[in-house]
């Protein structure tokens, strides 16, 4: 699964995108975040301490969203455009 990061989240994670494989038990965004938090300390720190939003295939989604058909997940801070 391709995950992309933007802005402060990108800086904290230290990369703008990556391919991550995760087990079949990861079904929702919430599962994914838990999985990433257990993956290493950087993710743990980011998802524990910073506000973030999730977009699946360019659509904002909530934590219950099921990701089985998603091709690209974007994780980024609250937006500040306009």
């Amino acid at each position, binding site marked *: 699964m391709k995950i992309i990061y933007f802005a*402060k989240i990108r800086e904290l994670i230290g990369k703008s995108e990556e391919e991550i494989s995760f087990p079949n038990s990861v079904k929702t965004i919430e599962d994914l975040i838990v999985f990433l938090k257990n993956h290493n300390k950087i993710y743990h720190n980011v998802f524990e301490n910073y506000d973030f939003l999730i977009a699946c295939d*360019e659509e*904002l989604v909530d934590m219950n969203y099921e990701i089985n058909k998603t091709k690209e997940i974007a994780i980024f*801070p609250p*937006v500040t455009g*306009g």
Partner: protein
Amino acid sequence: MIDIRIQSNEFDFSQEVKNFQNNKIDGAVVCFLGSVRDLEPKETLEKLEIEYYPKMAKKVLKETAKKAFKKWSLSQCLIIHRFGELEVNEPIVLVITQTKHRKDAFKANEYIIDFLKINAPFWKKEHSPKGAKWVKQNRRDLEINF
């Protein structure tokens, strides 16, 4: 007519207004222009950096314009949003809406700018002599009911 542009180069508000007016259709036009503010009173902004998520930004702006277009019977709608490095006073965002009755042009315009403020994936980073910092989302923007 819906025109959406996301660009790094500066745009000329007055020229955009002129182009927009060449398609004269309805009587009421409302424009909103947002420009780079300085960091008053204690700091000086060296530059404002705008990062964005291209595919999604285009999609959000287009869908927002379409929704407003339908809801308020717009005859024309233009949205321009910049990315990249901007200096104080440079234009960031322009929204122009045109309708038969002015109330609709005001409502549609405000809807578009309010909606994109909390949904369009753009992020601002302020660079000053003290360093760089990401702009925080304005709480008031989140309290708007759509």
